[in-house]
C-alpha cells in the first residue's frame, strides 16, 4: 500500500480554501441519514461531536470518564496560540506557521501546519462566543502572553486553566447537542476494537465499565480523538486513565502509525519524589516568562545544597549558572521544550542538579517579584504556585521552585492524510492521537490549538467528502465482522482474568515505564534501544503468564481496565523503540546520541531523514513494515534550529 497524503496543489496560502471548495458536500437534509461515532471527548472529540451534531449528523460519543467535562485536555494550563496579532508585534498566519514548523524541527507537513495557523483565529472567536472567560485588559479586550519558541506574544489564556475553560466551552456545545437529541453520550465506556466491513471502518466494540458488557456500535464513519499514549512511560503528566488502546487496536486493524517515537518531554514538571509516586505534575511553561532557570555553578555547591548545609536563597549571584540565558541569549528561558529539557538533563548529569535526588533545577521568581511585586506575580500564576506548594510543601514566593523534565505529550500517532483520515477508509484521527501537525517537537500552547482546529474547523468539512459517496444503509451489529471482533475482545478479557499470576498490573507497568524512560527517553542510542526491544519482549511474555487480575468482568473492575491498557502499551512500546532505532538523526524530542554537533546540540539529518515514518502492522510476532512519506518543503528553508 502506498501513502497518499492528499495535499492539495497550489500556493500554500490557498491550499485549504481551494480544498474546501473541492470537497464534496452532503445535502443538509441528508446529513441525518448518517451516523458518526466519535471516541474521546477531549478538545478534539467534543468539538468534533458538537460540530457534527450542529450540522445534522447523528453522533454517538464514547468516553471512559464519567463525564465529558473531565477529559485530560482540562489539565492544560498555559494557553492557546493564535495569529491575531492583537499585540501589534509583527505576528501573522505565516509567522505562526513558520514558528510551528521550525519548532517541530521540520518534521511536519507544510500544508497541515499552515492550515492550523490559518484557522487559529477562528478558534479564539468561537471560544469567546461560547463564553470562555479569557484574560482581558482593562479596556475590555483580550490579553496575550508569550510562550516558548516564539518571539511574539500570541498566546490567549484563562489564568492557569486555559485547557479547562476551552474544554468546558466544547463540553457546553456538546451538551447543547445532547439536549437537541443529535449526540448520544456513552460515559464510562471503553473502546476495545474497531470493526471493518468490506475494508471500511463501520463501528467499534466497547466494554461498559460498570456492567462489563461487551457491545458493538455501528456507524458510517468512526472518528478517534483518544489523546496521547505517554502513559507507556508509567510516570507522565497524563491522567491516570489516558491510554493508547484505541489507536493501537486501529493500528492492528490496518491504520499506519506515524512517528511513534516522537515523545515530548516537558521541562517544567515537579520532580519525582520517590517510588510510591503515581503521576507527575506539570507546572505551566508560561512560568518561564518570569521565572529564571538556574543551577549552582559548581558540583561542590550543589552537594552542599543537597546536604542541607546551604539554602538556595543563600547562593550568591556569581555562583549561579543561568544556563539557558547563558547558552541561548536571544531566547533565554523561553527556548522550546526539547531544548530546555535536554539542557536540564545535561546540568544534572554534570552533578549540578539540586533537590533530594539531584534530578532537579531551579525556576526562580526572585527577580520577577523584585521587579513587578508579589501581587502581579500572584495574579499571573497564583493557582500554579498554590498547586506547587500543596505538593512540595515549599513556598515558591520565598524559595525557588524545583523542576525537572517529564513525559508530557506524544507528537506521534495514527498517520492521517490532509483530510485527517487514517489508512483505513472511514477511520479518522484528530487531536493528539494523530501524528500530523507538531513534527518532532510541539511548541507550547499548540496542543489546544490543534485539538480545536481539527474538531471545529477541519473534520466537519472533510468528513462530508467521504460520506457523500457512502450509501445510507446501516450495517447491523449482527454482522459477522462485529461478532468476530466481540468474540476476540471477550477472549482477551477472559484470558487476563484467568492468568491469576503473582505480579500486579502496576508492577508490570512500572517496569515497562522504567525501560522506556531509561532507553527511549530524553536521549537514545542504538545499543540501548536494541536492549530495550529485548527487555520489552521478555516483559510482555512474562505479563501474559504472570499478571494478576482480580475480580470479574461483570462489574466495575478497575484492575481489569488497567490490565487491558497495559497489555496494549506492551506492544506499542516496542514499536516506539523500533521507530527510534530507525531514526538515526536527532530531531526535536528525539535525541540520538550518535547524532550531535561538536557542542553537543542535536544534529538533524535532512538528507536521510526528512520523512514521516509510517509503520504497517503485519501480524502477531512479525516485524512491522516501514513506509516513508517524504516531506517536501517549498516555503521554508531547512536550517539547523538555533535559539542562540
Amino acid at each position: 500500500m502506498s501513502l497518499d497524503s492528499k495535499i492539495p496543489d497550489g500556493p500554500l496560502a490557498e491550499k485549504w480554501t481551494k480544498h474546501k471548495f473541492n470537497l464534496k458536500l452532503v445535502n443538509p437534509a441528508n446529513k441525518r441519514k448518517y451516523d458518526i461515532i466519535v471516541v474521546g471527548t477531549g478538545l478534539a472529540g467534543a468539538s468534533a461531536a458538537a460540530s457534527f451534531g450542529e450540522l445534522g449528523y447523528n453522533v454517538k460519543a464514547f468516553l471512559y470518564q464519567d463525564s465529558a467535562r473531565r477529559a485530560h485536555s482540562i489539565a492544560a494550563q498555559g494557553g492557546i496560540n493564535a495569529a491575531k496579532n492583537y499585540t501589534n508585534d509583527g505576528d501573522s498566519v505565516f509567522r505562526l506557521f513558520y514558528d510551528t514548523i521550525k519548532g517541530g524541527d521540520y518534521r511536519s507537513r507544510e500544508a497541515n501546519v499552515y492550515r492550523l495557523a490559518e484557522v487559529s483565529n477562528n478558534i479564539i472567536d468561537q471560544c469567546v462566543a461560547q463564553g470562555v472567560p479569557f484574560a482581558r485588559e482593562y479596556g475590555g479586550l483580550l490579553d496575550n502572553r508569550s510562550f516558548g519558541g516564539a518571539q511574539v506574544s500570541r498566546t490567549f489564556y484563562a489564568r492557569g486553566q486555559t485547557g479547562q475553560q476551552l474544554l468546558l466551552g466544547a463540553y457546553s456545545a456538546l451538551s447543547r447537542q445532547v439536549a437537541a437529541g443529535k449526540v448520544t453520550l456513552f460515559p464510562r465506556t471503553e473502546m476495545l476494537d474497531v470493526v471493518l466491513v468490506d475494508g471500511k471502518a463501520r463501528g467499534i466494540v466497547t466494554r461498559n465499565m460498570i456492567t462489563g458488557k461487551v457491545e458493538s456500535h455501528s456507524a458510517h464513519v468512526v472518528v478517534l480523538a483518544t489523546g496521547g499514549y505517554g502513559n507507556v512511560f508509567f510516570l507522565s503528566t497524563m491522567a491516570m486513565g489516558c491510554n493508547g488502546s484505541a489507536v493501537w487496536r486501529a493500528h492492528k486493524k490496518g491504520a499506519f502509525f506515524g512517528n511513534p517515537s516522537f515523545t515530548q518531554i516537558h521541562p517544567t514538571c515537579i520532580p519525582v519524589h520517590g517510588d510510591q509516586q503515581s503521576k507527575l505534575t506539570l507546572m505551566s511553561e508560561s512560568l518561564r516568562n518570569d521565572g529564571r532557570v538556574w543551577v549552582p555553578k559548581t558540583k561542590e555547591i550543589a552537594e552542599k545544597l543537597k546536604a542541607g548545609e546551604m539554602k538556595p536563597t543563600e547562593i550568591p549571584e556569581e555562583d549561579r549558572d543561568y544556563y539557558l540565558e547563558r547558552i541561548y541569549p536571544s531566547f533565554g528561558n523561553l527556548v522550546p521544550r526539547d531544548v530546555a529539557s535536554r539542557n536540564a538533563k545535561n546540568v544534572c548529569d554534570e552533578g549540578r542538579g539540586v533537590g533530594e535526588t539531584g534530578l532537579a533545577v531551579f525556576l526562580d521568581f526572585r527577580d520577577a517579584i523584585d521587579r513587578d511585586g508579589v501581587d502581579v506575580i500572584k495574579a499571573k500564576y497564583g493557582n500554579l504556585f498554590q498547586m506547587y506548594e500543596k505538593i512540595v510543601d515549599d513556598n515558591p514566593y520565598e524559595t525557588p521552585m524545583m523542576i525537572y523534565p517529564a513525559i508530557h505529550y506524544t507528537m506521534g500517532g495514527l498517520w492521517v492524510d490532509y483530510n485527517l483520515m487514517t489508512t483505513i477508509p472511514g477511520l479518522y484521527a484528530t487531536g493528539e492521537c494523530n501524528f500530523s501537525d507538531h513534527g518532532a517537537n510541539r511548541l507550547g500552547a499548540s496542543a489546544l490549538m490543534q485539538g480545536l482546529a481539527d474538531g471545529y474547523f477541519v473534520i466537519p468539512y472533510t468528513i462530508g467528502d467521504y460520506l457523500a459517496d457512502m450509501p445510507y444503509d446501516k450495517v447491523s451489529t449482527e454482522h459477522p465482522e462485529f461478532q468476530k471482533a466481540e468474540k476476540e475482545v471477550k477472549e482477551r478479557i477472559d484470558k487476563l482474568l484467568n492468568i491469576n499470576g503473582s505480579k500486579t498490573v502496576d508492577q508490570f507497568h512500572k517496569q515497562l515505564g522504567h525501560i522506556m524512560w531509561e532507553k527511549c527517553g530524553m536521549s537514545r542510542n542504538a545499543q540501548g534501544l536494541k536492549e530495550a526491544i529485548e527487555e520489552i519482549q521478555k516483559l510482555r511474555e512474562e505479563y501474559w503468564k504472570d499478571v494478576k487480575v482480580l475480580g470479574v468482568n461483570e462489574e466495575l473492575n478497575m484492575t481489569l481496565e488497567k490490565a487491558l491498557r497495559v497489555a496494549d502499551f506492551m506492544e506499542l512500546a516496542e514499536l516506539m523503540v523500533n521507530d527510534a532505532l530507525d531514526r538515526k538523526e536527532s530531531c526535536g524530542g528525539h535525541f540520538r546520541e550518535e547524532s550531535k554537533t561538536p557542542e553537543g546540540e542535536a544534529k538533524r539529518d535532512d538528507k536521510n531523514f526528512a520523512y514521516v515514518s509510517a509503520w504497517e502492522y503485519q501480524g502477531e510476532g512479525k516485524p512491522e513494515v516501514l513506509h516513508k512519506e517524504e516531506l517536501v518543503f517549498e516555503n521554508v528553508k531547512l536550517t539547523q534550529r538555533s535559539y542562540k
Partner: protein
Amino acid sequence: MEKERTYTLKIWRQPNANMKGAFKTYKVEDISPGTSFLEMLDILNDQLSENGEDPVHFDHDCREGICGMCSLFINGRPHGPDEEITVCQLHMRVFKDGAKITIEPWRANAFPVIKDLVVDRSAFDRIVQAGGFISVNTGAAVDANAIPIQKVNAELAMDAAACIGCGACVAVCKNASAMLFTAAKVSQLALLPQGDIERKERAMKMVAQMDAEGFGACTNTGACSAECPKGIDLSVIARMNREYFTAKVTT
C-alpha cells in the same frame, strides 16, 4: 527524609448499587509524608491485590486537581482536611502518624453509589444540558475583540467558571443541594454579554432540572462554598436567585 508513617483506614465497601455496603478496616504502613492520599490508596490496593482481595474502587483521573473526578469524603469532609484542594492534592503529611482515617463516598440521593467509593454524578451533566451553554454554532462567531468585556466582569465570570463539577458542594450540604454547582454556571454566563440573550431561559431550565434530579433545597448555610476545592463564592447563589426570580416575573 522524614519518617514513614502507619495509618488505620476505615473504608466504605459496597460491591454494587443494589447491595448494602459497610465499613471495613485496613492498615497501611511505610507511608512517606510526601505521598499523596490517592497514592496511599494505590499502595493499599497493591497490598489487597497481592492478598487476593478486590481493590478499593475510587474515582480519580488527572491527579492534579482539575478534572473533578476524585470524590472522597474523608473524616467527615469532602476532599479531606485541607483548604481549596481536591483529594488528589491532599498529602499524607496532613495526617499524624498512627491516625485513623475514615473514607466514605459522596452521599446524596442524586449521586447513587456505583461501587465502593464511586458514585454516579451524571445528574450534573443533565443540569448543564438543560441550559448551561450559549447557543452558537461552530463558525457563527464574530471577531473575538468585537465583544469588549469589562475586566471586572471577565474576572468574576472566570471565578465562577473555575468550578470542576466534583460534587463536593452537594456532598457537604445537609440538604444535598446542588445550588452552588448550578449557580456557578448560571453566573458565569449571566456575567458575560454573550450569555445575555438566553439568560432567563437558562436560569429557569437549569433550576428546573436541578430540582428534577432530586437535589435538596438551599438554606444558605454556606458549607458548599467553604468546602469547594476551587473556592466558588457563595455570591453566585444570590446571583442565580436574582436571575431566576427576574426570569419568573418577566416571562
